[in-house]
Every structure is written in C-alpha cells, then in structure tokens.
C-alpha cells in the first residue's frame, strides 16, 4: 500500500517534514509532523493523519452513537455514551416544544437502562455533549443484542463504503446499528444469524489490523458452523 504512504507509527514519531496540513492525531512541531497516537499514518496530497489503533471515544458533532440512559433530572436525561463525557438529552427533544418539566413524567418515555440510538448535536470542550433522538433512524432501541467493540475499530467494521457491514447483513439477515462510540446493536429474527453476526463483529474487533479481513469474514459467514 505504498501509494498513499501508510506507515505504522507510535507517539512522537516524525511522519514527514513536508508542507502538509496536520489532521487527526498529528501535531505540527516546527516543520515536523508528529504522530500523537499509536496507529497508521496516511499522507494525502496536502494533509497527514493517523488512524488510531487504540483509545477511547471522543464525541464529535454529527456522530451516531448508542447510549444507555443512566439517570435523569426533571429537565434532561444523562446517557452513557462510552466516553469520558456523558451525553445530555434534553426533555424537549422527546416531549416536543411544549415540554413542561413540572407535568411531564420523564420516566414515561425513557427509563434508566434504556438503550437509545442518538446523534451528537453539539460538543465543545466547555460542556458535556448534547445529543438528540429526534430523527427518523434515531430513538429508543427495543430489541437486539448489544456488542461492545473498540471505538477505534468502528471504521473497519463498516468497511470501505460500508462493504463489510453490508456483507454481514446480507449473509445473516440481521439489522446492525453501529454507534461511532464502539457500541453495536445486532437485531435478527433468526437466532443462528444473530450468533453469526455477533461472531463476525467480534472477529473484526480482534483482527482489525489484519490484511484481507473482508475475505476472512466472508469465508466465516459462508461456512455453516456457528
């Protein structure tokens, strides 16, 4: 893969010294571009980035995440989004514009322990990330099994243009919801399909750094053993 100069790097390693724009997980120190995480560096026409191989999920606007309600006040819910910050879900997001904290019962809509598919609306350094469930594919998750993978391996699970996840869904007829925070919900009517999809996801989590992983996953999905 020498075309876009991929390399294994560790923190502090100098990736290049050219006139490039530093992107994710790199810093510019003088003229040197330095990696800040263990990962794979990629040099594009004008920019450099490192795809991390480890690390916690850091919220980013517009990310789809899966969260678990951990508590609520009379105004908002707090959701565990597998990060160092908790997601804030305002009551008005669920009850609509005429949300009245004194009369509307928060637990009637979402209780502690409920899973939600949410989108990060806003996150800056000064406050906890604001999340929403007011969109078509978002909201409370009623069925399925939760699988936890490393957040840094989510791109691998999705694959290039979603090829990997499509392969799994096609082979198992499961519906898979992937949160950028490393939480994945697998729903499937057929228990064998569910097991197989879970196994495939775990396999990707364990072997994310391997080459031709898509072929291996496909081979596993096509074999009859579960």
């Amino acid at each position: 893969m020498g075309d876009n100069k991929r390399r294994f790097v560790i923190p502090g390693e100098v990736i290049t010294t050219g006139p490039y724009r530093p992107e994710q997980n790199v810093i510019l120190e003088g003229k040197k571009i330095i990696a800040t995480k263990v990962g794979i560096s990629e040099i594009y026409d004008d920019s450099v980035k490192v795809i991390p191989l480890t690390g916690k999920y850091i919220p980013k606007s517009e990310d789809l995440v899966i969260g678990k309600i951990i508590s609520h006040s009379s105004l908002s819910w707090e959701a565990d989004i597998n990060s160092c910050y908790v997601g804030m879900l305002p009551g008005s997001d669920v009850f609509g514009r005429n949300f009245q904290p004194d009369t509307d019962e928060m637990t009637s809509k979402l209780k502690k322990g409920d899973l939600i598919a949410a989108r990060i609306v806003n996150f800056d350094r000064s406050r906890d990330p604001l999340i929403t469930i007011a969109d078509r594919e978002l909201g409370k998750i009623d069925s399925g099994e939760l699988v936890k993978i490393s957040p840094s391996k989510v791109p691998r699970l999705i694959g290039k243009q979603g090829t990997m996840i499509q392969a799994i869904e096609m082979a198992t007829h499961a519906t898979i919801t992937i949160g950028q925070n490393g939480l994945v919900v697998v729903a499937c009517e057929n228990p064998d399909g569910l097991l197989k999809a879970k196994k495939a996801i775990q396999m990707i989590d364990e072997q994310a750094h391997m080459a031709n992983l898509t072929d291996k996953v496909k081979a596993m999905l096509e074999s009859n053993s579960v």
Partner: protein
Amino acid sequence: MGGRDSDLVLLDENGIRCDGRKVDETRNISIKAGVLKNANGSAYIEFGDNKILAGVFGPRDVHPKHMSDTDTGIIRCRYHMSPFSVTERKNPAPSRREIEIGKVIKEALRPAVMLEKFPRTAVDVYVEVLQADGGTRCAALDAASVALADAGIPMRDMVSACAAGKVADTIILDVNNEEDQAGQADMPIGYMPNLGKVTLLQLDGVLTPAEFKKCLETGIEGCKQVYEIQKQALKDKFFANGEQ
C-alpha cells in the same frame, strides 16, 4: 554516599562493573505492552532485576470532583512498591519516598501528554513495583509511558528514562542497586527522544560541572536506547501479525 560496603569492587581495572557490565552499558531491558485486560492501557517492564507493572485509565471522570479542571485534563500517578519487592518486607502503606516518586513520575509525564484535549477529565497512572533493584523510578517511567501510548492517550512524544551516575570517579550508565548504595552520584533522567527535551532530572550526590555534563549526555544516550525498546514493545503489540 561513600562506601557502605567496602569490600565491593564497583569498577575493576578493566573497566568492568560489579555486575559485569561496561561503563556505558545498560542492563537487559524488556518491555511488553498491553498485559492487563481491565486497564485501558498497560505495560510490564523488566529492567535488569527490576520488575514493574504499569496500568493506565482514562481519560475518565474526576473523583473527587473538586480536583477537576475546566481548562484541561489532569494526570495523577501512584507509585507503589509491593511488600515483597525488597528483601525486608516493605510496609504497603504509601511512604514519603513513594509519594515523592509518584509526583516525580507525574511531572515527567505531564509535558508529553496532551491533557488540554480533555478538559474536566483525569488520566490515572498506576505503577506497581514487583521487584526493585535500583533505578525503579526510571523503569517505572518507561513502563508508564508505554502504558499511556497503549491506552491511546494523545502524546507529543514518548518519555524514555534512564539513570547515569558516578562510581569510582567514573561516569557510568544505568546505576544498579549496589552502585546506588555505594557509588558517588545517581542521576535519573527522563527524556523525550524526538523532541529532545528533558522532563525529569534529579541528582543525588556531588558532581563537578564537567562531570555533570558528561553524566547528562551519558544518561540521554541511555534514554535513546530505552526508546528503541519502547518502540519495539508497541510495534510488537499492535503490528505484530501482518501489515495493513
């Protein structure tokens, strides 16, 4: 300082030290990254007869809450010696020395870790000395640095550490326990090898300005050797089986 054990020959006429090393030779060092399942990042180091385990958590919520900083993350470090790490049983309660070393390691790591990316959070570093043989603070710092990288915490550079010292009027690299007890000076150094910056510098003993300079240079050379081993440890964990 100054010869508690008088019949011990620290440096013989051939320039060989009490454990058979040359003056500019480190002990055998091996590091393994990612040895603990429950910590976010971990590392195990064998630095000569030192055996040290480091575990890292975070960035995570700060407890107690009043310690949190709204502008930046904080780093905390606990250095602890197991009761069986030395020949006489060590009281497991944190001693004055352990609290100091925890603070020193924390301050040596802080310039490398990009804490400003995670306001209101904490990065916790736990260092457990299983067996001690002189130079534990350097070995602990090496392990902690690998554990931080393993945890995926953004860092400007790795921190590598190695001690240098003076024994029998000669500057030596990587002071062991006997040399520390009977030698003339011990200087632990923490160094960021790519940025070329020193993050830890302590000195126990007396050195002339010329000796000090030589000692620092020797120590930094040692840090660079340690860095290669740290690098290998991380590459072994993350890139061992196959290429992308």
